[in-house]
């Protein structure tokens, strides 16, 4: 076993030192009749065998980079510079623990501090935490935080919110007395979605959750929503599943958000079939002590030298136990590192440039789709993603195009089954989409429709 350093000689010497004859004497507390069960699993394999086995499995999947690719809906294919993945694999980052010993963890702590700052800057908020598991769990934490802040029970989830996010909120709060009001999705009329959310706010409302760009792609001005929420002492939670959009559009903070939850995958992280991703979580200074998750803060060491530590941990489970703000412990450290390295490479200039390239690709996609019979573009605004109404069932169109080697997007019915959206398709176009890809999609659609 290549990972196990003890030799037979070592083991014997150690057993002698301990004073037992057989290693199973160390397992004597385990009931004897269940010790050393027959395990019907294969024996160990050489590295070459494992590599071949898993490579064959991987080859059964269609990699996004190998085909014209328009799938988005909360996870996006972007080009991540080679430097990012190279740096996060440095053993000192990869194999470090949570930085509870700050004297030998300043590498991790400083990048978290940088990350927190970048997230705050991007979202237009005062402060951000060290990351959540992902956007969807972050969204559920935000709803619970709003309850702690407002001491009110009712959360309104707008129709623009990704269905999975709404489900996660509903699932997670099912055993509390929170009231979750899910509004209907309305891809054909995002302004109506916004208005419905505004109208739903009342005195009992703790928060309203609005995704922008919405799950169907539209970009909206949320100021009216913020105003109404604040009138009723409710919080506006803005969800951003495509963080790259913040390079082009006004920030949630500028629009009046109280909490911003984001899925950070687009920056620094690959698609990975949905995980690991990283949740961005930002809010304003006054709510800091109600925030879930880890926080890194600046301090000094005994010599007065600037350094960083985890702080405000009295909110957390390992101190507060059942009184903690959240049970979250592990965060997405390595994904956050990838995010912060990619953001550092981009800088404001690069981020704006890539965001613009995304929007241009989506504009080109829209223009190309307008020329296809049986396709009606629903969006008047969008960042890099838009929804279309097809003349056929979207799921079957997607399957037919997949057979042609084109991954055409997400059928709305996969996210919203039974909501009458069978003919709606959500398509994303990032900077990785070429003119050839769009041509292939258009040609494929013309064949299939």
């Amino acid at each position, binding site marked *: 076993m290549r*990972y196990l*350093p003890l030799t037979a000689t070592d083991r014997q010497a150690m057993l002698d030192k301990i004073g037992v004859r057989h290693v199973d004497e*160390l397992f004597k507390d*385990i009931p004897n009749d*269940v010790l050393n069960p027959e*395990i019907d699993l294969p024996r*160990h394999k050489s590295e070459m065998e*494992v*590599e071949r086995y*898993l*490579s064959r499995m991987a080859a059964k999947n269609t*990699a996004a980079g190998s085909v014209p690719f328009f*799938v988005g809906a909360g*996870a996006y294919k972007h080009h991540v*510079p080679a*430097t990012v993945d190279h740096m996060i694999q440095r053993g*000192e*980052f*990869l194999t*470090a*623990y*949570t930085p509870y010993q*700050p*004297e*030998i*963890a300043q*590498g991790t702590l*400083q*990048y978290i*501090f940088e990350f927190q700052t970048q997230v705050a800057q991007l979202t237009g908020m005062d402060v951000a935490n*060290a*990351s959540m598991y992902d956007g969807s*769990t972050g969204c559920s934490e935000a709803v619970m935080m709003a309850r702690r802040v407002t001491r009110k029970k009712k959360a309104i989830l707008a129709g623009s919110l990704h269905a999975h996010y709404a489900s996660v909120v509903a699932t*997670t709060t099912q055993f509390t007395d929170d009231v979750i009001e899910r509004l209907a999705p309305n891809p054909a009329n995002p302004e109506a979605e916004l208005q419905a959310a505004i109208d739903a706010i009342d005195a009992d409302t703790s928060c309203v959750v609005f995704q922008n760009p919405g799950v169907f792609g539209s*970009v909206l001005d949320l100021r009216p929503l913020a105003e109404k929420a604040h009138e009723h002492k409710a919080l506006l939670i803005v969800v951003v599943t495509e963080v790259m959009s913040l390079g082009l*559009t*006004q920030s949630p903070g*500028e629009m009046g958000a109280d909490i911003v939850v984001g899925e950070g995958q687009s920056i620094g992280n*690959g*698609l990975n*079939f*949905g995980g*690991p991703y990283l949740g961005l979580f930002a809010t304003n200074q006054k709510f*800091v002590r109600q925030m879930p998750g880890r926080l890194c*803060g600046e301090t000094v*060491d*005994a010599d007065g*030298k600037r350094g960083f530590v985890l702080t405000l941990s009295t909110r*957390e489970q390992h*101190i507060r136990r059942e009184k*903690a703000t959240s*049970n979250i412990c*592990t965060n997405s*450290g390595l994904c956050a590192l990838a995010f912060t390295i990619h953001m*550092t490479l981009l800088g404001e200039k690069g981020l704006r440039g890539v965001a*613009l390239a995304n929007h241009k690709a989506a*504009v080109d996609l829209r223009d190309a789709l307008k020329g296809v019979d049986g396709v009606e573009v629903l969006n008047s605004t969008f960042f890099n993603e838009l929804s279309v109404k097809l003349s056929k069932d979207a799921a079957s169109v997607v399957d037919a195009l*997949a057979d042609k080697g084109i*991954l055409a997007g997400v059928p709305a019915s996969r*996210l919203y089954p039974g909501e009458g959206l069978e003919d709606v398709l959500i398509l994303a176009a990032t900077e990785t989409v070429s003119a050839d890809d769009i041509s292939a999609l258009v040609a494929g659609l013309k064949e299939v429709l």
Partner: protein
Amino acid sequence: LAEPLIFELGSTETTGVDVPEVGEFEMAIGGLERTSEIGCPGLSEPDTVRHYTRLSRRNYGIDMGVFPLGSCTMKHNPRLNEKMARLPGFSDIHPLQPKSTVRGAMQLMDELSHWLCTLTGMPAVALSPKAGAHGELCGVMAIRSALEARGDAREVILCPESAHGTNPATAAFCGYKVKAIPAKDNGRVDLEALKEALDDTVAAVMLTNPNTCGLFENEIRDIADAIHAAGAFFYCDGANFNAIMGKARPGDLGVDAMHFNLHKTFSTPHGGGGPGSGPVVFSDALKAHVPVPFVVKTDDGFDLVEDADDKSMGRLVAYHGQMGMYVRALSYMLSHGADGIRQAAEDAVLNANYVLASLGDVMTASFDGPCMHEALFDDRFLKDTGVTTLDFAKAMIDEGYHPMTMYFPLVVHGAMLIEPTESESKFNMDQFIASMRGLAGEAKAGNVDRFSGAPYHAPWKRLDETQAARNPVLRYSPEE
């Protein structure tokens, strides 16, 4: 040398990427262009590489040396796992691609499920929880779902005092009151006290086994029987599964639900704080309540069930969980095989007992041996030396080691919890033991200075955590 923050190094005019030029075109973002400055500086690629290289060198990781952090299972992270997780067929697939284009992904999830169920002797698994604490949530919600399904409104969860903080936090999260179970002098649950506490208001007992004192709960079957007799469920925190994998199956011990920490037990990287992955195995009594999504076998392969039925608790995460971690964990399992997994558990326990046997005469072991995969000491041997557990731990940094876990579990005073894992050679163990003996000797010899200012040889001296919390500075601001 101090490393500046990127905000002190870079400028918003600098970038380390080349962006395609797109020319003029009519935008369609509804007039919501960002006009304010974002403020994020960029660095060129060479400066980015240097900044993060230099930061990394201020960290200690498993790759650098012994990392005996009790309860955290800091084992070797094989590089093969990293390579496998980066195969485009795993890393470059979208969670909402057509299922016909992700057959390999479904196969991988199915095989991982099979390994986890077989190793635990449990019939079902939920892969999607994002980390150990999230797995606990999944487990307790399944328990509550099952209880509600039978119309049984219970309101209490029992946890031992030695439990990880996530256990009571999770129980509270699901609307339960938490009551503590006392421990006996031998570091195990007091079975009689448990029996007394068990009544029809108790939904579940959450136990870590091997427990956080590094001991196996030797009355485990009596405990399970008592729990089930009271109509409650037995939740096992699997954080310490590394000690018994391949040696014993929780399913044989009456467990109803147990989460894994893939990053502990199956060597996916800790990564300075994550990402984790917390699959949960379930007994027959709970399996109907697993969250979506999950993979099922079909006649011609696999399918993903994404929509919850009436019994399912619902959905805990967007998409399918931590695929990247699944690949790494399966790569670890395939590499070890059933034989290697058992050997790893034995070596982990052997290493811990070797520490216990080698340090027992100079430090104070909290309980009689043998221990499982970690050796627990307390601060009685430091009595009257003026050296605290914290001081002792910080002095270990000067010896070139990451400190052990300190002040946890709470049930002994000044706890020092040492978990070497199976990744350490005897050579490494002997060096570590010699260092610890040396430190213990110095403490007893009254050499307080060696400890009170430690670490002396780390890049930073002790950091002021009080100041950080009193006046939190959580982001860079230019006016500083």
